[in-house]
């Protein structure tokens, strides 16, 4: 038992962030906090201040290309050397922290753990923690590739120094960062104050853990934020709204098969199609009938009221582009009594994708044909590897009763069979974080690998 523990892979946390973002403050916090772990630190030679710990080793960044000058095959030679030495004293510590310089590309650091066989066996890249100086990053996010890459590689992002920016700026920044890397957990901090279990032992490169932490990160994005299912009798109902944050919004009013959550769910895909079709603009007082028509309702002015005309008694679903609460919307019958939805659902909104770094999540049932999937992925990585910073996924291969979990950095890919699938659980979910990713092409290419 002791021997087994002794040879467990040692977790490694990589700390990135620009000079002044608070890396050293966090490092000091991690070293002094009472978490019962003995931590070895590999510090970059330009460390801002010294760290008081016995096992601190300075490293000078040495980037080694491994093959033909391919950027995806670069590793950190200094880390290989230092970590190999640390492995000879593995009984002296339980965790390794690697602090990178502010300008460092996290790629070669992460790739080192895939490319070197000795380190791959002994160590487990637990996570990349990126510290962001909120004020600084607001100024540089648009013109700095290093900032984008550090965000794209992260498992955890700490928005630090939040006292220096306004709440609105912070919200906008968080939304942008989330759109770039939707797999990362984002925390707002001051003086890098954070609970240790949010930065250590993340299992960030362990997809199973990542999925447990945030099961929604792979959910597709929708063109609407809300839907509600109503039981209506034949006749007119009134959809009354107050002015809100937007001057207009798209809605779709449609029939459902039955008054159940499943009945509502069956209409989602059709509604997505409707929301991609041409809308007609309506003014307050207009009549809306259940149909495949997208209606753009005007939200400017007072006492806005639209008439939902119900031809026959039954179940109906209303899809709204924005959340009805933003407009204090209610539905009443002809007598003025409020009618509440039997079921409603909130959807993750479809963000504006103006970032060149973004996340593409694919989530789909069905079994993959390995003969199709392997060449597809190989081809994808060969062509787009330099643009793909991180990827993770759980796959369902035909003829396999076990889950297949994988993760990768650029062109490097590491996958293995995991536990058996449970009843009714089989499905595929994966995420790519990268630059210039074509959401549609990725989805299409992936679904063509299904049986």
């Amino acid at each position: 038992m002791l021997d087994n523990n002794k040879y467990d892979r040692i977790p490694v946390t990589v700390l990135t962030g620009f000079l002044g973002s608070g890396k050293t403050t966090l490092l000091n916090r991690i070293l002094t906090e009472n978490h019962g772990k003995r931590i070895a630190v590999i510090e970059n030679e330009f460390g801002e201040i010294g760290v008081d710990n016995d096992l601190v080793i300075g490293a000078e960044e040495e980037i080694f290309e491994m093959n033909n000058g391919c950027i995806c095959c670069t590793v950190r030679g200094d880390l290989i050397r230092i970590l190999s030495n640390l492995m000879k004293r593995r009984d002296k510590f339980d965790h390794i922290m690697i602090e990178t310089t502010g300008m460092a590309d996290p790629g070669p650091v992460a790739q080192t753990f895939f490319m070197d066989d000795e380190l791959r066996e002994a160590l487990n890249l637990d996570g990349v923690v990126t510290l962001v100086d909120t004020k600084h990053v607001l100024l540089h996010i648009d013109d700095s590739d290093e900032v984008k890459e550090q965000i794209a590689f992260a498992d955890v992002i700490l928005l630090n120094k939040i006292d220096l920016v306004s709440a609105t700026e912070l919200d906008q920044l968080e939304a942008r960062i989330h759109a770039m890397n939707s797999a990362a957990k984002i925390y707002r901090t001051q003086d890098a104050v954070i609970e240790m279990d949010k930065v250590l032992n993340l299992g960030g490169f362990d997809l199973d853990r990542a999925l447990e932490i945030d099961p929604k990160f792979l959910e597709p994005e929708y063109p609407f934020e809300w839907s509600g299912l109503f039981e209506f009798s034949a006749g007119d109902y009134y959809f009354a709204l107050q002015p809100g944050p937007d001057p207009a919004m798209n809605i779709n009013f449609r029939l459902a098969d039955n008054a159940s959550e499943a009945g509502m769910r069956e209409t989602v895909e059709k509604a997505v199609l409707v929301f991609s079709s041409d809308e007609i603009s309506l003014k307050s007082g207009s009549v809306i009938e259940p149909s495949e028509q997208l209606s753009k309702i005007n939200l400017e002015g007072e006492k806005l009221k639209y008439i939902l005309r119900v031809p026959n008694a039954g179940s109906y679903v209303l899809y709204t582009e924005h959340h009805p609460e933003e407009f204090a919307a209610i539905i009443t019958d002809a007598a003025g009594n409020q009618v509440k939805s039997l079921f409603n659902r909130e959807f993750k909104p479809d963000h504006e994708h103006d970032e060149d770094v973004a996340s593409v999540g694919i989530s789909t049932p069905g079994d993959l044909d390995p003969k199709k999937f392997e060449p597809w992925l190989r081809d994808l990585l060969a062509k787009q590897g330099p643009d793909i910073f991180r990827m993770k996924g759980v796959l369902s291969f035909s003829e396999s009763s076990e889950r297949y979990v994988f993760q990768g950095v650029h062109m490097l890919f590491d996958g293995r069979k995991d536990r058996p699938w449970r009843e009714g659980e089989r499905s595929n979910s994966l995420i790519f974080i990268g630059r210039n990713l074509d959401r549609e092409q990725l989805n299409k290419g992936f679904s063509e690998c299904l049986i």
Partner: protein
Amino acid sequence: MPDIDYSFLDDDLLIELSQLELDDYIIELAWSSNGENLAAITVEGKVFLVNKYADIIKYKLIGQHDKGGNSVSWRSDGKEFATVGHDGKIKIWDGISGNEIISLEAGDSWVSKAIYNPHSNWLASAAGRQLRLWDTNREVFYESSDHSSTIADLGWSPDGSGVAVAAYNGVTLHVPHKQKQPRKYSWKGSSLVLAWSPDARYIATGEQDSTVHFWHRASGEDDRMYGFPTKVLELSWNSTGRWLATGGSSSVILWDCSGKGPAGRKPREYLAHSNKLTQVAFQPTGELLASTGKDAVLAIWDPMKHDKIIGRKILSAPASSLRWNKNANLAIGQEDGRVAIFKLKS
């Protein structure tokens, strides 16, 4: 994979002389030239001296490098040896008494290696990218930082005239007093270890990209050998310079460097271990070869006669250093801090 053939195994081939408990991962062992004394350095930087007095083996802790140890080397006359470590120092020790003679400042941080010239009192040291050569008076008479990365390994040429340096981008050969510019043997890759053939025709390197290169010293051309499953950290030439033994897998691979060299020739393979090799060493004089693996097995071969194990010992942990002396004694430093010393039955 075929089973390892034990039909030639002689259980009595290796006779244990001693088992020492140094209690710290052994980084490197080195025998004095007469084979009487053995020095050891551990990962925590402890320096031990093992002396043999009339068949009794005794060892003592003689000092320490703060923060950690990296390498040990004896002067050719066997009177002193040098150790280096993470403290930026070269320490010189008396080979009999174990007293520290001097501590030299040799770098800002890690001194990764210091090795004595095979024929003189010169010492070559590596710290970061910097190579330094020290003369008999322990003064630096040559330095160079003309390397693409931290120096990974060093080796004096067999005649002692020059030092080859392995780093990222290949090998650099420095010949002080004779050539103005160091000679480059360039390769876009990270060379981790190097070994001169005893006839000085070749400088062999083990590489991060799982290859072995044979540099023809004179022409500057190289033969590249592919097919290793892992990076190659183990190289050992036989005494004549015809054969190079390499690790990088669970087998010992022997490359024939006679005539035109190893290119295009199928190497010999010796099925050795159930796991990756950790050490391989030819006798400096004599024909035998020793190998150890992650499986903590020591295997002895007579590779020119046949490809079967002739001697075998189960160790308490994998070996991290394996050194023959000229008296056919074999010292094995282990990851668990033990040093085992064997002799061959006569």
